[in-house]
């Protein structure tokens, strides 16, 4: 009977649990689900030859009873298995391992032992709290800057670009195919002491203002907080624009017309209609910018000086230069905990938990 043959075929497939087969097996399961759903109509229709590709006409029957049902329930697990194992071994396990490293003491020569030395956390925090605060401050500033700069562009692409939409989209994404480090180094040229930015700020007498605010120093922009925040903003801007664009694009333009018909001025329309409806994009964008920006150390390293070091720089140097693994682990853990706490609070406050 065709049903038993199908079961046998499926049995063969389940033994060979290679990745490619898992995909086709999933297709089989989809097919079975399909026949189950369309059962009533399928049995009602007269038997017809299946297809030229099929070996022989297959009468459509009630789905088999026991084994395929179990197997169908197992299909998602087989699909998940390799990828989830990968994540468990190379993502989750290392985090747990790092937790144990953070309470170890010892040295590179003698080896490290778990001694439940929680003091490391306290020492790390008291030694490096300026870097922590600076990371959060810089990342938050860059996130706000990204929102301010990114929103008009996302809006432009979603509503005003018309047939140029694809072209503008390419122009947003394409710069990011040049290596991120090369572009960050280009900022070094743009912000350099004899470069255009310093010149422009100087001629507008803004350097004195920014120095007074403490975001630049003397006649320089490079190696100041302004440069680091500028680099962070630049590097994480697409992560803001893309989710903003996605959520703006979903808004029905008729809503804008409706607001206009009800005598709302453009600003009011934006405030009462567009912005609230784009909140999922704002939340997603701010998270996608803030989280990586907090852990980043490339901008601080290339565009800042020793006074702009962020927590990522500390972790990097503790791990790769000082080789003090417990401190690096403790710092990573504090950073992770801080970010997860902030993100959770933020998601709760913004009320879009269904986002993730």
């Amino acid at each position: 009977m065709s049903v038993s043959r199908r079961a046998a075929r499926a049995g063969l497939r389940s033994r060979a649990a290679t990745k490619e087969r898992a995909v086709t097996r999933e297709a089989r399961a989809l097919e079975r689900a399909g026949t189950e759903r369309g059962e009533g109509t399928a049995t009602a229709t007269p038997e017809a030859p299946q297809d030229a590709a099929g070996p022989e006409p297959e009468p459509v029957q009630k789905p088999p009873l026991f084994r395929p049902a179990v197997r169908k329930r197992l299909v998602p697990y087989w699909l998940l298995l390799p990828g989830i194992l990968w994540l468990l071994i190379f993502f989750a396990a290392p985090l747990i391992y790092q937790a144990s490293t953070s309470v170890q003491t010892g040295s590179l020569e003698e080896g490290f032992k778990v001694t439940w030395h929680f003091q490391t956390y306290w020492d790390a925090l008291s030694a490096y709290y300026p870097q922590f605060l600076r990371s959060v401050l810089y990342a938050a500033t860059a996130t706000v800057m990204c929102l301010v700069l990114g929103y008009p562009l996302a809006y432009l692409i979603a509503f005003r670009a018309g047939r140029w939409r694809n072209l503008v989209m390419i122009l947003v994404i394409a710069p990011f195919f040049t290596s991120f480090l090369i572009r960050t180094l280009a900022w070094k040229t743009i912000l350099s002491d004899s470069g255009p930015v310093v010149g422009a700020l100087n001629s507008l007498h803004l350097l004195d203002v920014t120095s007074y605010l403490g975001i630049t120093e003397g006649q320089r922009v490079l190696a100041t907080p302004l440069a680091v925040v500028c680099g962070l903003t630049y590097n994480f801007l697409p992560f803001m624009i893309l989710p903003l664009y996605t959520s703006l694009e979903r808004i029905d333009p008729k809503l804008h017309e409706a607001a206009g018909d009800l005598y709302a001025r453009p600003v009011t329309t934006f405030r009462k209609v567009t912005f609230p409806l784009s909140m999922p994009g704002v939340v997603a964008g701010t998270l996608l910018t803030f989280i990586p920006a907090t852990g980043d150390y490339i901008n601080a390293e290339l565009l800042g000086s020793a006074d702009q070091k962020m927590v990522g720089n500390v972790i990097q140097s503790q791990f790769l230069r000082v080789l003090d693994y417990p401190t690096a682990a403790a710092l990573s853990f504090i950073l992770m905990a801080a970010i997860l706490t902030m993100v959770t609070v933020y998601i709760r406050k913004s009320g879009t938990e269904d986002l993730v």
Partner: protein
Amino acid sequence: MTALTRWIRRNLVVIAGFGTLAYLILPNVVVLVFSFNKPNGRFNYEWQRFSTDAWTDPCGVADLCGSLSLSLKIAVWATIGATLLGTMIAFALARYRFRARSSVNSLIFLPMAMPEVVMAASLATLFLNMGVDFGFWTILIAHIMFCLSFVVTAVKARVMSMDPRLEQAAQDLYASPAQTFLRVTLPIAAPGIAAGALLSFALSFDDFIITNFNAGSTVTFPMFVWGSAQRGTPVQINVIGTAMFAVAVLCVLAGQLAGARRKRS
């Protein structure tokens, strides 16, 4: 004057948007311009005079092209691995209701919500303590790990928005499961899979933080650039940056043209 101010006010969003666009593209212009520079010292930060030396000899710097091909190799393998594993997970998540679904979802989400430096340091700690030699394989493992979530997200979105009735229709028309998958499911999911693959290629090729922790003495292209920022950047780096930009734009444009042609026919 009032006409101008009115125009400005009406197109404020467009003006601001183009300002941001200029901000995004500015460094690429600088990279392009400085690829024709002939610097005086080791550092290529100040304009000296025009020269095409770097363009005629892009591999003229030791280790540059080696690191580039290593990065390409890693990116290709990481893309293949992450796309395969990620597409499977995405189908499971989009198509099935099963226990542990929400925990799987959070396990997928976490790597994207984690600062890279934390992931990098923890994975390196594991490798270090397992006594694994750092190099090609550790980089590849790390890259597949962090690209996976992005592939899952891209493919899942596409599969979720797909109409299940299309597959049912194929079944009703007596398509075999394999045919249904190859001729209906896969073509519909393909843009999502392609987006995921493209994203993981770009992420892997460009990754510095995770690679820096897990590479040992192996030097990928971003690591070469990082090193050169300290030792002096050769102009060739700008050449390669410009070439990457050009190739990307050409690829995207070709894709757009192909899409437009398909729509027309």
